[in-house]
């Protein structure tokens, strides 16, 4: 019997297959790791390096991510243009990542280097890790839902748990960022290995080639 095609399912499957390569996780992890290293460098050398780190990371990570997508993903599952909708999802993810990153570091850098803060800002900075933790959770839930990537929910939960524990136990923010960055990257590499195994390179040529 002819069955009506479930277009949402087909679209979701097509979209998901493109983001199960783990590259998004690897580069997001790299971004968080860079953040952590930047903030660590700030504390060790008082360099102010953490201030410019988000911009440097975006400038470096984004082109590499695009190149990796072209060299690893496309030869394995082919090329697809999702149109405006798909592109806007990816753009939203990176803009979100950038905004969160800049926000986190602005707050962190201000908290680290400015001693004459107003009282209400003091309150925010004293609870900075809690704010960042719950902010990360909200962002991960939002992007996880928008992009249909359930693992982002897990990242959000782990982030909030780690940052809340870090807040109450007095663990340095940079250490948590480093740990989270490594966790996301390791997940990404595991996904990448699975993806490469599932979709080996094959000599299929496009029709009419």
């Amino acid at each position, binding site marked *: 019997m002819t069955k009506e095609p479930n*277009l949402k399912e*087909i679209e979701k499957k097509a979209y998901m297959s493109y983001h199960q390569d783990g590259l998004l996780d690897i580069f997001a992890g790299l971004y968080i790791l860079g953040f952590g290293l930047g903030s660590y460098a700030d504390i060790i050398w008082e360099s102010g390096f953490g201030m410019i780190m988000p911009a440097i990371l975006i400038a470096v990570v984004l082109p590499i991510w695009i190149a990796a997508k072209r060299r690893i993903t496309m030869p394995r599952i082919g090329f697809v243009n999702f149109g405006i909708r798909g592109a806007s999802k990816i753009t939203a993810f990176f803009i979100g990542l950038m905004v969160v990153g800049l926000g986190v570091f602005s707050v962190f850098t201000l908290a680290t280097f400015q001693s004459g803060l107003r009282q209400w800002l003091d309150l925010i900075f004293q609870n900075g890790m809690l704010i960042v933790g719950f902010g990360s959770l909200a962002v991960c839930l939002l992007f996880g839902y928008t992009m249909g990537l359930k693992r982002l929910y897990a990242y959000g939960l782990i982030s909030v748990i780690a940052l809340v524990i870090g807040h109450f136990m007095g663990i340095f923010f940079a250490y948590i960022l480093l740990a989270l960055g490594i966790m996301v990257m390791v997940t990404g590499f595991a996904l990448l290995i699975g993806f490469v195994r599932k979709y080996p390179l094959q000599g299929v040529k*496009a029709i*009419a080639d």
Partner: protein
Amino acid sequence: MAQLYVVQSADFLFLQRQTQMTPGNLSAHLRKLEDAGYVEITKEFIERKPHTALALTKKGRNAFKQYRRDIQQIAERLPE
């Protein structure tokens, strides 16, 4: 057609991965759709490599929409 309906364009490999069809079988389907004017095949170069993009034409999109409507109507007429 459903696979191409949800994207702007895709290449042969992507369609093959999504549909799990053999290359020969998929080629035959696409040729029929191209002959009917439902699928447009565009050859282009991406990073100096030849690449063939497949997309539904306006006629193909309209035909697919009509097909969905027809299927829905048939389903509604079926007894419980």
